[in-house]
């Protein structure tokens, strides 16, 4: 089947997904026969791991692009600041005290230029895109870990989250029911 999108990336993603599903379907019977005991669960869910890895491809590319831009911001600002320092130090006399003066000039110029960069909208946008992409990759990693945890008969992140949520709701309800919510304690804890 020909992919709708002309985008090469979409094409490769589609092809990978197609074969991933096909292989999972075709190998389900043999793998069921071969996988026994606790690892059976992992074998059955292994498709989910490859799906996540395929989906992550675009994000890895985006992450790399944004990371390059992030370092580009840092690099360009560094070079610009260093040029300003070089121009300025020619005015500083060459004696023992000049080391302190040089340090002051270097720090002031770098501080100023980097603060301007951090204050720049384009830096903020790229940095936040970078963090968001990293978080998306982390989310996929969490999903993969969940498959592994499930196979080890351990609670997944989602299940633990549900428990936390339940505990939070219960605590709130108890506090509403019991107005004597404060537990007073008296002890010297300052260690002084």
């Amino acid at each position, binding site marked *: 089947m020909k992919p709708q999108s002309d985008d090469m990336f979409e094409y490769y993603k589609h092809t990978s997904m197609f074969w991933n599903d096909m292989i999972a379907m075709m190998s389900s019977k043999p793998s069921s026969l071969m996988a026994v005991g606790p690892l059976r669960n992992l074998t059955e869910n292994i498709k989910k791991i490859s799906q996540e890895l395929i989906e992550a491809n675009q994000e890895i590319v985006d992450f790399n692009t944004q990371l390059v831009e992030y370092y580009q911001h840092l690099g360009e600002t560094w070079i610009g600041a260093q040029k300003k320092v070089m121009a300025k130090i020619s005015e500083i006399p*060459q004696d023992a005290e000049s080391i302190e003066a040089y340090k002051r000039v270097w720090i002031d110029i*770098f501080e100023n230029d*980097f603060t301007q960069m951090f*204050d720049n909208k384009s830096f903020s946008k790229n940095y936040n895109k970078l963090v968001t992409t990293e*978080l998306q990759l982390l989310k996929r990693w969490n999903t993969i870990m969940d498959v592994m945890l499930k196979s080890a008969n351990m609670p997944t992140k989602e299940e633990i989250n549900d428990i936390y949520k339940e505990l939070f709701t219960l605590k709130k309800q108890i*506090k509403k029911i019991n107005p004597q919510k*404060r537990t007073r304690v008296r002890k010297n804890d300052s260690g002084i």
Partner: protein
Amino acid sequence: MTQEFDSVPTIIGDFLNFSRNLVELPKKITVPHEVKIGSCPYDVVYEEDRIRMLHYKPLTSKQIQIPLVISYAIVNRFQIFDIDPKKSWIRHMLESGFDVYMIDWGSPTSMDKFLGFDEYVNDYLDNCVEYVCDQSSVDKVSLQGYCTGGTLATVYSALHPEKVKNLIATAPVIDGWKDTTVVSNIARNFDVDKMVDVIGNMPPEFMYYCFSILKPFEQGIEKYLKFFQNMDNEKYVDSFLKIEKWLAETPPIPGELFKQWIKGIYQENLLVQNKMFVGNQHVSLKNIKMPLFTQVAVGDHLVSPECSMPLHYAVGSEDKNLEIYPTGHVGMIASSFSQKNVLPKLTEWLKKRS
């Protein structure tokens, strides 16, 4: 050329001094993580979930009737208020006759990720104030909030004005759109939903990133160069290590609270526009009619004065005072400058109203 040679002995001398000091340093001082912070003794008088309320032991025979409750920031720990006896905010207040309580918000775990403004303001802070009122047999307390704790104190005062006699807002985060710091530039485009969805709580590592972009060269390089230059000065080293230890103890921020913070203050700027809701209650700054003392620092690179000052103009108080100091965010509360300039004005103002 002669000039260049003249400076050589000085450079060699400096280098030899530096090497000697570097070798002798570990013999003189304690291991950094064992440094003790805090000089004023206290009792932990109230605990709920992760939070604790500390009651400092009085330093005067007679105390001012209205107690002072300090709502510390949710970033870093409360010890900065008492980091050094000579620069201690707490000690100064105790010596001035105030009965001082401090809220330590503690260190939230993953289980606390659903805690938001409602729990912090209407449960924790309210319970602390109630406790102090019970213990001191008063109906109202003086409430001071620092940084993000200033925002919590402001929201509390707007929702529970009947329990606050005086409000002291020290570098509070109020108007996110007017904030000119690099932190606000990052916060405005931050995908906080994704962060909370994937990680849960705001991790300290991210806070360290935010700290590192604030004066990266002064704080990241020059500070350490100065340390090496002054490492034979015991007092300097002691003070340096205390601050470093304090900086390194940043707790995570509960995910829901962080989300409401970023969206409500920095992205949508709801608080100052009186559009914020906490636990289904409308937060109107006009409800703040008690005496207000706002303190801001011109050199504050974490919460710019433009971000804090709108509180002074947005409240309904008639008795209000705005003080602007030529210092920084931490310098305003823990420095010789604050002992000489910030605290005397505050204690004088507060005594008249307590």
